[in-house]
């Protein structure tokens, strides 16, 4: 009997990986991560106190890695539905470049690392909020809501709305009304943003069996709900100025942006049922990205100017 038996390694599980570092980076959903970094940064700068800039950079990095980790966990769980949707079929897991087990391990390790780093080096409230956000996105949204209810992105949108609250908590060690309003802006922005996408990608979602609003309640109902959310979002966007947290400059910019959002949503509401090109829905989707970026940029600019004036006056 031989001491070393000959073993044929032909099982797919033992196949040597061809995944590059770029494939693992793609698991972090870099485009979503960039939005998370930006909104968390605004929350961090808008806070009334300041921290060491290097600690602030570490906080942003930890929040970004945590968001990326939740993206990896999402791609691990959703590989089956990603494979049948044109928008997601080329992602690393459905395309076979990264195995589901590798994506899961990657997501779990990065989740633990980002939360522990934020807790040890910044503060434990922001770490707890980051841990909750990862849990909310990976478990509550991805594993439960997404395949179960057309309200999936309404409730699940909370995960994407937490970064400015985490940024604020990283500096102040607390959660206050100002950061809750930043949360609300993203929370109310999420449904019209994703429903605009779901309108012109309804077939994709239908094929994957995801109960998005247009597939469940119909296009007319979705268009009405988009418009209703736009009517709520526009005044909430102006709320930071109304409550006296920011200057009139922000108030004017956010009001114009809000009117634009309502206008684009109105065009979607008026879209005829026979319209299959759905240009108004595509236009609203594009505008919604601009809206979120611009309103947070206005908040950031306001905070920077206020700090500069305070330093000049000191």
């Amino acid at each position, binding site marked *: 009997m*031989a*001491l*070393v038996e*000959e073993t044929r*390694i032909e099982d797919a599980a033992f196949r*040597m*990986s*061809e*995944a*590059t*570092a*770029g494939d*693992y980076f793609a698991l972090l959903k870099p485009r979503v991560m960039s939005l998370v970094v930006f909104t968390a940064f605004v929350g961090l700068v808008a806070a009334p106190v300041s921290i*060491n800039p*290097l*600690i602030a950079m*570490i906080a942003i*990095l930890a929040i970004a890695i945590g968001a990326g980790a939740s993206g990896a966990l999402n791609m691990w769980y959703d590989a089956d539905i990603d494979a049948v949707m044109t928008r997601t079929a080329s992602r690393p897991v459905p395309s076979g470049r990264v195995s589901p087990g590798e994506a899961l391990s990657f997501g779990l390790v990065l989740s633990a690392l980002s939360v522990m*780093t934020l807790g040890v*080096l910044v503060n434990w409230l922001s770490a707890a909020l980051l841990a909750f956000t990862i849990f909310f996105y990976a478990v509550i949204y991805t594993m439960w809501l997404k395949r179960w209810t057309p309200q999936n992105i309404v409730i699940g949108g909370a995960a994407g709305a937490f970064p400015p609250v985490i940024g604020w908590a990283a500096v102040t060690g607390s959660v206050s009304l100002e950061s809750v309003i930043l949360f609300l802006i993203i929370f109310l922005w999420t449904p019209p943003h994703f429903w605009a996408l779901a309108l012109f990608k309804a077939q994709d979602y239908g094929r994957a069996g995801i109960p998005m609003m247009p597939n469940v309640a119909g296009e007319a109902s979705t268009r009405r709900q988009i418009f209703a959310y736009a009517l709520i979002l526009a005044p909430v966007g102006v709320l930071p100025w109304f409550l006296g947290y920011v200057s009139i400059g922000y108030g004017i910019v956010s009001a114009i942006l809000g009117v634009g959002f309502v206008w684009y949503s109105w065009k979607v509401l008026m879209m005829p049922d026979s319209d299959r090109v759905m240009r108004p829905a595509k236009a609203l989707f594009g505008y919604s990205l601009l809206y979120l970026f611009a309103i947070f940029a206005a908040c950031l600019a306001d905070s920077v100017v206020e700090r500069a004036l305070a330093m000049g006056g000191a």
Partner: protein
Amino acid sequence: MADDKLEMIELTERQKKARRSRSVAIGLALGALVVIFYVATFIKFGHFMPNGPM
């Protein structure tokens, strides 16, 4: 008795390139982590450190 020659897995060029890319990324990430914790330790606990010889 066992054969003198063991059967090894031969990596393809693509697999070797991918492994090198992953190794570099892991190395850079670990290096960044060391720098981050080193710098952050000085920022957070620098004032507890003795200035002169003990």
